[in-house]
């Protein structure tokens, strides 16, 4: 094997991520942060479909962490809150408290049709409404569920990478 082939093999090994699409504009930045954002995920009452897609977005194939997005455990450590699912009665107050506990300035990203406008569960019993009925939403990612590529593209608008 020639030296060039060897170097190409080394560079290729372990890379399974899809090549990065072109950089979008920063349409929803968090003031005071540049190029990275820490997000706390809250499941306000989802069916878990959006969670699986978000899991794929953070996985090795779509790898949104390349663009500076990070998931953190405590809202006190976060720059924003990632909300999935329609807001149920029991989760309305905890969602409000989580957003309140996140230091300002922060963003709230609603992922999925249920989080954006109530989706198919809009009229179900035990449902308070969409996320924008409970807290202020800065960015919506529509889809049922949105594909990992759509989630990555939306989060890139927050970090600008």
């Amino acid at each position, binding site marked *: 094997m020639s030296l060039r082939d060897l170097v190409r093999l080394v560079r290729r090994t372990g890379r399974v991520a899809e090549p990065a699409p072109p950089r979008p504009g920063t349409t929803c930045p968090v003031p005071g942060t540049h190029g990275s954002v820490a997000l706390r995920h809250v499941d306000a009452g989802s069916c878990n479909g959006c969670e699986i897609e978000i899991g794929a977005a953070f996985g090795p194939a779509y790898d949104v962490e390349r663009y500076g997005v990070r998931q953190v455990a*405590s809202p*006190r450590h976060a720059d924003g809150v990632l909300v999935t699912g329609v807001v149920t009665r029991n989760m309305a*107050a*905890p969602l409000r*408290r*989580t957003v*309140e*506990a996140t230091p300002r300035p922060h963003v709230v990203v609603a992922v999925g049709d249920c989080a954006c406008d109530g989706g198919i569960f809009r009229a179900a019993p035990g449902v308070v409404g969409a996320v924008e009925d409970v807290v202020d939403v800065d960015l919506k990612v529509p889809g049922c569920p949105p594909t990992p590529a759509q989630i990555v593209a939306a989060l890139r608008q927050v970090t600008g990478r």
Partner: protein
Amino acid sequence: MSAVDLGLRVQVLLTAVALLAALLPVRARRLLSGVCAVLLGAAIAATGVAVLAGGTGRLSVATALPLDPLLFAPSGLGAYVMVLVGVVGAIGAIAGTGSAHGASSSSTTWAAYALFLLGMSAVCAADDVVGFLFGWELMALASTVLVLTEHRERADVRSAGLLYAVMTHLSFLLVLLGFSILAAQAGSTSFAALSRVDPSSGAASVAYVLLVLGFLTKAGAVPLHVWLPRAHPAAPTHVSAVMSAAMVKLGVYGVLLVVLRLLPGGPWWWGLLLVLVGVASATYGILRASVLADLKVSLACSTTENVGLMVTAVGVAVLLRGSGESASAQVAVAACLLLMVAHAAFKTTLFLGAGAVLHATGVRDADELGGLAARMPVTSASFGVGALGAAALPVTAGFVAEWALFQSLVHGGDVDDRLVSVVLPVTVALVALTAGLALLTFVKMWGLAFLARPRSAAAAAAREVGGWERTAGLLGACAVVAIGVAPGLLAPALRAAGGLTGVEPVGVGGISFPGIGVSLQPAVLAIVAVVLSVLLAVPVVLAARRTPRRRVELPWGCGGVRLDPRMQYTATSYAEPLTRVFDDALRPRRELEVVPYATAPQLVSEVHFRQDLDDVVETRAYRPVVRLADRIGAAARSLQDGSIHRYLLYAFAALVVVLVVVAL
């Protein structure tokens, strides 16, 4: 008539006035008896200061006994302890005026308090054996009455009072025996004659052991310490403050009296005995203090620790003097005297603070306190300063005293004597262990009682105590800080008290020991620290003002309000690692009971946990002795069976024995 003569007579007069004031009705009694007790304390302290400044005086009390008159002529050492006793007694009386109510404010209690102070002063001022023992017994009786004050309200007070009475009279008996042997050798009862007894004789050794045992019983050293953690919490607060801060010092004063004045220069094992007892007391005392949750019991065990350190210092002084290192020996004596003053200052503050907490919440157990810093700010501040002093952190009295002790241990080490060169490093290690455990103990005590959230409704309902108690606590805290910042002010008193030449004030209130070439200037350290912290704090505060403060409504509890005061550390859980590591020495008894649901045995309904930390010395050493005494008593009862023939036989046999002995 000199100032000292006047002082001694004024003390007796003020005691008489205090006894009369105790007979007044309740309202007037509390104020007037308190004021009389404060004046009595001030008079005792003033007499001591007059003696330390170079005055002399005497009070000679003739009795109907076929003995020489009682002689009270304080020496430098006695005067030093008198100042301590007087100041502590006055501060205790100030606190008592505010906190005493019900049984603690009765005529008996106030009268006994005045007699207690007079008894302690008599012990310090005594210049002959009979005067000393008179003061000792007066102090013992008065303090027993004071310990038993609340016997109607609390069940544990009676047994504590009984144990205390037995132990204090045991100490009286041992001291009496020791002094009798010495007086028989010397032919007279005055201390001047006793100091001429040859220390290397066998009788002097026996007397030394008896006297040291007697004084260490009063001081509360292991294994004779069991009464301390029982009696001090049983007594009313101001009394337990005076007992812990002043009375146990008289035991140490007795040891110093024997070692420095009566029998200086004894054989090598005298100092070793003191060091062994001292180190054992210090480590065992602080170990128990660090694992117990009850504030007052923990403070009493800490007293055992400090007494152990004082006795260690005296023992090291004796060892070093015997092997020729007189400079370090002097520093060791100075360390013992500094420890006495420092302990008096911070222990008074701590006990009065614990008493204020008890007064405000009705609870002594730190497992049920918390959040008192917001509700009782003044008490919290003075208790905090006392805790800093007890943990021997810089700019407090405890730091100066432990510094002096460490200096004497470290600088006495380069000596040819094999015994000294083995004993001193081991002592340094154990004293360092003690210091570490003390820090843990007092962080636990202050942090758990005063910080965080209240752990019970009683703690949540606490309110700051009245002006008298707050004043007393603040006075103690000021003393702790004053001695810590300017120890050089004590240097002339140390010189006069111990007959030392190697203690000098230096710089701005600093103290130095020129014999071993060390000095300490806490005032300079304090000023440097204050300047540095101001230089650091000002820019930080100015920078912080640029971002607006946001009120946090709720601590983060995963979206819910799930924080419960029961989730906090308790004193027992904080000390659990220590209990586990030292479980061979502490022998905790633990009971765990898990109650499942009757219909679903896999689900737990209740868990009951109980931990008992009884004193190992009491369960392993005292109870067998008491059981043996019980069995002997029961066997002896068979001699008293009611038969008059047997009683006549006893009388006849006794007569025969006496005649035979007289004939021999």
